[in-house]
């Protein structure tokens, strides 16, 4: 299972208390995680990536294993630590503002 940590606003929106565990088929790509997330929580459609273009929203970031995967393509395969659930896949709002 993939562990996904959502920002507080999206947890509230999806009515989640804590982390989310997703059963993502193989290979565990960035796109597959987001697709599974949106199937699991349809209310999050459009909040992490655009409805139509599926592009990441500009002020959303994807971190895992101490690295920034925000700019990777949807077919990017996530690290083994994320695939095995040892490390979480973190979705967060970028630092912005003053």
């Amino acid at each position, binding site marked *: 299972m993939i562990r996904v940590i959502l*920002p507080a*606003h999206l947890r509230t*929106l999806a009515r989640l208390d804590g982390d989310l565990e997703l059963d993502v088929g193989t290979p565990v790509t960035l796109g597959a995680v987001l697709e599974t997330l949106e199937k699991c929580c349809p209310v999050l*459609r*459009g909040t*992490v990536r655009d*409805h139509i273009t599926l592009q990441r*929203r500009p002020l*959303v970031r994807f971190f895992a294993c101490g690295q920034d995967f925000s700019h990777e393509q949807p077919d990017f395969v996530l690290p083994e630590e994320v695939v095995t659930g040892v490390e979480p896949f973190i979705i967060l709002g970028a630092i912005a503002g003053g």
Partner: protein
Amino acid sequence: MSGVRVLVGTRKGAFVLTSDGKREDWKIEGPHFAGWEIFHVKGSPLDSNRLYASQSSGWFGQLMQRSDDGGKTWTPVGNEFTYEGVPGTHQFYDGTQHPWEFKRVWHLEPSLTDPDTVYAGVEDAALFRSTDAGLTWQELSGLRGHETGSRWQPGAGGMCLHSIILDPTNPNRIFIAISAAGAFRSDDAGVTWKPINQGLRSEYIPDPTAEIGHCVHRIAMHPSRPNVLFMQKHFDVMRTDDAGECWHEVSDNLPSDFGFPIDIHAHEPDTIYVVPIKSDSEHFPPDGKLRVYRSRTGGNEWEALTNGLPQSDCYVNVLREAMCVDTLDSCGIYFGTTGGQVYASSDSGDNWKAIVRDLPAVLSVEVQTFQ
């Protein structure tokens, strides 16, 4: 028992303010959707428990919420606003053509005939409609597809469709206004549109009397007189008596004819209200005095309403969606400020008091009346 429910959208959430018909003691509930920008909350005129809210965030985009119990609980509904066909381009700040891009919903206008139908005015300017209580949205693309569409350009606040007025006597007639394209009217329920800007004069565009390009800030109609509209423009307060075919200025003795909101007394169609702001570059009241101006003559002959409003060192703004009126016998007037105050008058504007003082910056104020 009579009462009112005031729906307040702010930069950091929505608030619901309720009172009985005396409008002296208020209960404040919120924030709903804490931390999110709530551009507009409005109730159905057919079902007071049916509310729609536009929830937005620079991080997570646009969400739409619906309440079926008067704001006690909310359900996220559809948030997919897709322009019909190939979106095309409009004029950008630098004069180049720029693709239409959906950014947010500025205004929600529930139908006068069906609680499940609601209109949404969005940025970049377009009109959408839902007929399933907000679950799905379809563009009324004849507006954006108007032959002038590629020449529309954004105002400083973005290219937003902020005013939607449904004619209570003619279901086919809709008025809208866009910053900075102007006002438009449809006589076929939103299929086709015509610009209705004749008589407007805007010195900030190359041709001051052009067909489009005017920065209309707000338009208002009294339901008993649907051919008479009032407009607060970037500069100038305007009136039309023929559904927008021709406008004339009614600014008269206002201390500034710049401002954002404009509204009409519930029982006196010739009594109108504006909040003058110093200028386009100084978005605060002239002389630091927060004054609502009232005309009882359908424009012109303005009187300052100051009793209970700060008359020194006040430098807030009142945004275009942030004024409304209730329909109780003694008409209530409400407005919210960027300083977080919501002011109310229960006597047509003669006397004011702050219902609440320290909310986040107020974006919109609507009221529901219970007789």
